[in-house]
């Protein structure tokens, strides 16, 4: 298990290196010079700035410096915000995105497993069909639509109640978290429900389920420890991609709800062409997602003994 973990971590590092390289290459393909459009009008100031940011050196040297700094965990200084390092931005705003993302993910997974189980249990009946309809709707409606409609509903609710039942935007309390997390998680929830349903339906007719029934286990026991436990595995594998979807979905939801998260910062940095922030956040996000996929893979080994054995043998 340890060897496997190390191997995966090493592969993850290679991935992050690739992401950093691609980011660097993409940003250096940008025509022009990041300092051209700024306030640095005189040639002298511009030259000084170029030296300050290392832009006077050959590209390969810059690449080396960039990789070295990344390895040290130093993402540089923002181009547009004075005296603010990218690390500061990440430190301050990642928490917000992480809390929002985790709540959304938890909501999506728990809801997906639950709804999937309900649909599989009542297959073909009204509950199944109505949930499936909602699921297809959930997959087809963009998260920003959920966000906007949610705001409208809450506004109506607030007006009806005469007080602020739920805040419509902003950040700070648990109540601020509810609506954005819902909007963010709904798409993933729909997706996971579908997955859970089909994997449960596959499990239902397996031999071991029949055996369990034959030896007289109570139905809830069969469902809980024989069907659910096995059917949940595909859901676990897809947690990594689900997390990626939620992370990027955060860009939109954070800007709709005016939440000071990292996603909103990234969008803002792109709009202002803040090169260091764009590069830093891309590499950070890439590393984060790569790492989370590894965590999920290792977690998978714990959930599924067969895979653990196979990995140890390998």
């Amino acid at each position, binding site marked *: 298990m340890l060897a496997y973990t190390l191997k995966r971590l090493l592969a993850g590092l290679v991935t992050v290196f690739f992401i950093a390289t691609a980011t660097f290459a993409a940003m250096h393909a940008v025509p022009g010079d990041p300092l051209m459009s700024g306030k640095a009008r005189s040639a002298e100031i511009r030259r000084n700035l170029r030296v300050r940011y290392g832009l006077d050196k050959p590209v390969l040297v810059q690449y080396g410096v960039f990789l070295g700094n990344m390895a040290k965990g130093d993402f540089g200084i923002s181009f547009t915000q004075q005296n603010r390092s990218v690390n500061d931005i990440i430190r301050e705003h990642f928490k917000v995105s992480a809390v929002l993302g985790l709540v959304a993910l938890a909501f999506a997974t728990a809801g997906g497993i639950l709804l999937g189980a309900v649909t599989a249990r009542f297959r073909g009946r009204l509950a199944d069909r109505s949930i499936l309809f909602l699921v297809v709707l959930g*997959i087809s409606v963009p998260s920003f639509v959920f966000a906007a409609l949610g705001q409208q509903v809450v506004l109506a609710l607030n007006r009806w109640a005469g007080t602020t039942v739920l805040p419509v935007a902003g950040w700070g309390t648990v109540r601020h978290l509810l609506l954005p997390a819902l909007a963010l998680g709904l798409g993933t929830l729909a997706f996971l429900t579908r997955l859970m349903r089909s994997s449960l339906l596959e499990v239902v007719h397996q031999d071991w389920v029949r055996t369990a029934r034959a030896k007289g286990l109570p139905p809830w026991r069969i469902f809980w420890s024989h069907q659910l436990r096995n059917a949940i595995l595909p859901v676990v594998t897809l947690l990594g991609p689900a997390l990626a979807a939620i992370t990027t979905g955060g860009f939109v939801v954070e800007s709709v709800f005016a939440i000071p998260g990292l996603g909103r910062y990234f969008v803002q940095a792109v709009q202002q062409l803040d090169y260091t922030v764009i590069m830093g956040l891309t590499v950070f996000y890439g590393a984060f997602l790569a790492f989370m996929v590894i965590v999920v893979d290792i977690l998978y080994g714990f959930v599924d003994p067969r895979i653990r054995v196979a990995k140890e043998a390998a």
Partner: protein
Amino acid sequence: MSLPALSPGDFAPLSRGEVARGPSRPSLSYWRDAWLRLRRNRQALASLAVIALLLLATLLGPLAWRVDPGQTAMARTSERPRGWAALTVLAPLAPYQEVVVEPPPAAPAGAPLRAPEGLRLLGPATVEAVRLRWEPVPGAKGYLVYRSTSRPGGDYLGLPLGEVEGGNLVSFEDAFNLEPATWWYSVVAKDGAEGPPATLRVAVPAGIPLVEARTLDPAARPGDAVARPWRPLGTDALGRDILARLLSGGRISLFIGFTAPLLSILIGVLIGGVAGYFGGRLDQWLMRITDFVMALPFLLFMILFRVALGVGPGESGVGPMLVAMILLSWTGAARLTRGQVLQLREAEFVQAARLLGARPRYLLLRHLLPNTLGVILVSLTFAIPSAIFTEAFLSFIGMGVVPPTASWGSMCNDGIKTFLVYPHEFIAPAAIISVTVLAFNLLGDGLRDALDPRLRSVE
């Protein structure tokens, strides 16, 4: 069941070479079978119809609905969707005169302000102006006027329209973007703090100001019926026709939605096919590249490429968006094709063909490609809605198609700003994105069931 008439000849043995018995049913080709299966799936058929309709509407719609999607009309901003109707031309508005009364008696010190009494209309309420009049409130230093689209509840009185300075000024004229609808006006006395509101419900009938009517019909007189150019889905914040924008925006959204998946799947099939067919070192390298591209966070790099390809903020760049999408999304198809080709390469019928001396070209075109086509077609139907989604998502955060160019995503971006007041500007593009994606998803489900028995969903 009756027996057919038999003759002794029926029992004579057949000669050698004569087919003893034909196939029990006419043989069905793969595609014919798939079509028959799809035809039985009502959801998929309906989706197919919706998609055909959407394509038709976006291709031919702008020819039929000849309204310039870019034409702004500041006199008609944020109009709600409405049926076609001729409007009565309004009589010219009498000049507005403020109503000034004797200064109200000073209130006893410390007493709270009362709500204004006798709030009423001054003259008729028209889309040109609503004039209000109320009785002075003792102790008031002035009044605040609010307007709401629904009956005010709680603290919220609606849009603050303006302020009247002076307790003896007891009238107000509202000429701000009035629409034929029911409005609730609230007037509040103020003397530093605000008193309780008096609310009046005002129904504004439809009508058209004489000046505007004359631009449409120079001979128009008050009382005539004159029709404005029809805006079935209303107008946006700049007075542009939402229907025309949906149609022209659909061209961009669907163009991206079709072109990007088609090209990226084509590239993916080529790369995956080559990797799977030739195998060995080449396969390893190609798959390593695929893994690497797959590891890139998709949306982040979509945005990064946009910057890298020199599209500044506020520029539209449909081309760069396409390039970035294709560069980043061929990997799924490549893996899928490679897997299929690897499997098929070892299949008995392919080996038999090879033994019989078939050339690679023949193998590829006759055996490998047709047998992978079903799976690829299914992945294409699922790639289209996700490309439409990506476009909408990017445009929504201002990283894709940017206003004034219309695409469904950029229209959502425009509409969300005024969503709380004029929801129709957001709902129209959001609904059409959702319907399109829904149709493609349902069609994809149907196609998967029809084309690929192995992937058939558990139903």
